[in-house]
């Protein structure tokens, strides 16, 4: 294999570390507690024996602090990460996560604040929620904001439930019962239909046109049935294309008595440039862990705020964080209040206030960038994707002509003739030191490769990525085997996922126990 002549841009991963349970050595400990400083009672007098564990926590690891440090430090080296290089995972907006935001989130005044602290004693924390709501309202053009949802999908559920609650109120329970259809384009992310289903809607799929946009004719036709509660639209859509008929789309849905929900996962293409509220959208969710750079953390935590029109505001989850009109602080009242009094609210979607730590980081992101900075970031994100679209067009099939926004989709059409498919190209990219793009999504594009560079990469890195992709295109012709067997540079090769799913092993078990069953 040729990995010798590969110019790698990130770390080669090859390494061996057992499971912590396999490293456990009886008697080793990694903690120390202060001595108990109160008069002790026999534990059985506090908790009756029958309510106590009798397994002595058998099987839990016994390790020292050094063991733990080495265990995780070693495992960490098997991961690719944004801090190591370009991570063009389409639809996920893998932008740089500022360490400054981490410092902010760790300020003791926030980190040690209990969610049930009295509102008067948490004014700073509430003010941050309020200000972030305010900024997100301005950025989306939608005045009603709830930061309670924990992630994008959670925000979708919240938004769709709001639509349902609004229609129930508008049409009355009886009539509204006939509006239980949620329209979703075939290009949508899987969470959209799943969220619609959670809210008790049945899903109808809208076709996309050959240019990759919502099929207006099909939309009109389905809307004519009169059972449409709403449309869930991603814009720019998951193909990286701006739905240029957005206003007309909203019009059609509104005329049919429905509301428009926008999946805002792709807001990194719009911040400072255009606002969903101005397009006719009624409610949207944002992914603070994408557009607003809160860390992805190996899969969360996220934060999926819901922003709505004034009309839908009464239906947002409770509690809401509001500002007292008059400065009551003098009169002993609180300036920022936790308000439960929204009788039409869909209710609570999460305990406490949502993923507060992410709100701190997002506000810090907005403040460090400033309004020009936010716009410049969007411009850079789109420029970078457009550059890749331009540079790779000669080697890879680009299924849609329309200019891409922050991300661009290619396919393996040309390479597959030689038997090299999207999966192989993705795996080979690993050998070149890049994280692969999103693959086989959106589903409507055969062998899709969705590439989102984000604004965090410079010209140099873009060119290295382009060079790698071109080299792979050449390899697919000259030496398909090399690509088909990639990656060659990682700790392990491709894993047999089918076998893993057939007889799933989802936890470690002590040897004997394992053999036992």
């Amino acid at each position, binding site marked *: 294999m040729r990995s010798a002549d590969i110019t790698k841009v990130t770390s080669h991963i090859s390494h061996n570390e057992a499971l912590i349970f396999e490293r456990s050595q009886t008697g080793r*400990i990694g903690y120390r*507690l202060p001595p*108990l400083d109160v008069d002790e009672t026999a534990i059985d007098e506090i*908790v009756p024996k*029958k*309510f*106590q*564990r*009798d*397994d*002595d926590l058998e099987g839990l*690891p016994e390790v020292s602090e050094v063991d*733990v440090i080495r265990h995780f430090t070693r*495992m960490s*080296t*098997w*991961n*690719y*990460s944004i801090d190591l290089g370009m991570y063009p995972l389409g639809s*996920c907006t893998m932008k740089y996560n500022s360490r400054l935001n981490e410092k*902010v989130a*760790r300020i003791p*005044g*926030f*980190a040690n*604040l*209990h*969610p049930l*602290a*009295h509102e008067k*004693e*948490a004014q700073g*924390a509430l003010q941050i929620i309020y200000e972030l709501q305010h900024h997100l309202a301005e950025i989306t053009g939608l005045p009603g904001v709830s930061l309670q949802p924990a*992630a*994008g*999908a*959670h925000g979708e*559920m919240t938004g769709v439930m709001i639509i349902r609650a609004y229609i129930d109120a508008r049409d009355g329970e009886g009539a509204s019962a006939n509006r239980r259809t949620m329209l979703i384009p075939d290009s949508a992310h*899987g969470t959209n*239909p799943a969220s619609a289903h*959670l809210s008790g809607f049945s899903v109808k799929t809208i076709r996309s046109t050959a240019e990759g946009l919502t099929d207006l004719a099909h939309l009109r036709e389905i809307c004519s049935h009169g059972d449409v509660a709403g449309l869930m639209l991603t814009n720019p859509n998951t193909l990286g294309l*701006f739905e*240029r008929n*957005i206003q007309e789309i909203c019009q059609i849905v509104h005329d049919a008595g429905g509301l428009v929900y926008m999946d805002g996962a792709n807001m990194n293409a719009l911040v400072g*440039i255009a606002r969903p509220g*101005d397009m006719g959208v009624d409610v949207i969710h944002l992914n603070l862990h994408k557009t607003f750079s809160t860390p992805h*953390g*190996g899969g*969360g*935590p996220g934060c999926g705020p819901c922003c709505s029109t004034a009309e839908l505001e009464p239906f947002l989850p409770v509690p809401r964080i509001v500002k007292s009109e008059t400065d009551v602080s003098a009169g002993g009242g609180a300036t920022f209040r936790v308000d439960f009094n929204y009788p039409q609210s*869909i*209710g609570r979607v*999460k*305990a*406490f206030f949502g993923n*507060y730590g*992410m709100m701190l980081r997002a506000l810090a992101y*907005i403040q460090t960038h400033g309004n020009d900075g936010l716009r410049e970031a969007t411009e850079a994100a789109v420029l970078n994707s457009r550059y890749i679209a331009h540079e790779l067009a000669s080697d890879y099939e680009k299924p849609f002509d329309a200019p891409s926004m922050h991300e661009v989709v290619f396919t393996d059409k040309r390479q597959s003739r030689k038997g090299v498919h999207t999966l192989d190209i993705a795996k080979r990219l690993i050998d070149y030191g890049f994280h692969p793009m999103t693959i086989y999504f959106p589903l409507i594009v055969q062998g899709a490769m969705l590439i989102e560079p984000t604004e965090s990469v410079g010209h140099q890195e873009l060119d290295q990525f382009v060079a790698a992709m071109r080299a792979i295109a050449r390899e697919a012709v000259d030496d398909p085997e090399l690509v088909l067997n990639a990656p060659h540079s990682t700790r392990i*090769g491709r894993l047999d996922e089918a076998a893993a799913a057939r007889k799933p092993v*989802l936890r470690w078990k002590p040897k004997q126990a394992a053999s036992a069953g």
Partner: protein
Amino acid sequence: MLHQIGLHSAEDLFASIPEELRLTRALDTPAALSEIELLAGFERMAANNAASQRASFLGAGAYSHYIPTIVDHIISRSEFFTAYTPYQPEISQGTLQVIFEFQTLVCQLTGMDVANASMYDGSTALAEAVLMAERVTKRSKVVACGAIHPEYLEVVNTYVQHAGIELKHVAFEPSSGQVPASIAHLDDRTAALVVQSPNFFGCIEDVAALAEQAHNAGALLIVAVTEAMSLGLLKSPGAAGADIVIAEGQSFGVPLSFGGPYVGLFATRDKYARQIPGRLVGEAYDKQGRRGFVLTLATREQHIRREKATSNICTNEGLIALAATVYMETMGRRGLRDVAVQCAQKASYTSRRISEIEGFSLPFSAPTFNEFVVLGPGNAAELLSRLAAERDINGGLALSRYFPDRPNDFLVCVTEINSRAEIDALLDGLADIAHSSA
């Protein structure tokens, strides 16, 4: 670069957006701040959170436990911190093995067979458990018994409102604070019995007895744990017969952070593995037979099953699950019990001493872990705000926040970080203030 791709201005990048939709003004958000200014600003706001600076006996679903220094160090490693969902196993083995260990630890502590890679938090995990019980049993009634965290119940309500699930409540038994001996509503239409233990009042429930009743009716038993630290000492819900166990994992190395991000633990029996919501990591092998880990049983999930998925969850609480894993492994077999025992000892000392104070009593008779309800001589909210103002102590939670009919009750939580000095200051404060206002 613009020119290289044949454009003239940044504006050209947005040609596909109709002119009239493009913003012609600057966003009305603040101008850019330097690091110096930004930190100063946040420090000012943090200083406005008086409650974060004092000795505290607040629990009720969010707990102050000691967090070993290495937890934050490890979760801050770029390789964990700036990676995303492990879609590409060859370069995500770090995250994948951590999740596999997390799943194992959750199973060990809850006494269950299989656990997922995490849920948003305890409250949403409970809601998903209820939905799962409906899928498993094809029954549509769910009975929530006793003192369950009110905010958890609100979330469950929101989730089930459109799922055609009927949610019944069985009040707690007022003298014990536990679920009453016989449970109304439990019948052959019941999908699940939901119980929290220790419950919202800190009372330990007889889970085994409840499991039996649930199973006799052909229903599942869902056990919710808001104070995961209790698992170090109390019989595991699995050992007591639970079918689904959900917990809030915040106690395991996660800062209070005004309510989030936390992490939901979700565990069940092997036979229900394919009905579980969220992500699962499993063992897998490559061509050379090397062991690795992958996301598995994906056919349950939204990106494949779309509206038929077991849940809509996608991004979960990866980094917090990592923190919990580091915590559980650092404390380990001995430490998890030690902490739990210290919590129980300190809480029992505190409740005993409070009950000796003139005018204070313990309204519930059930055994408790590290939280208990105190019935005070007067309005609890006023008592606690005076305690904060005059003694700089957060004495606990006035139950009136959730139970208007219990104006004089408050919930006190004591953990290993509450020193004897803090506890005694609380005792003196309660005595003096109650006395002075008497």
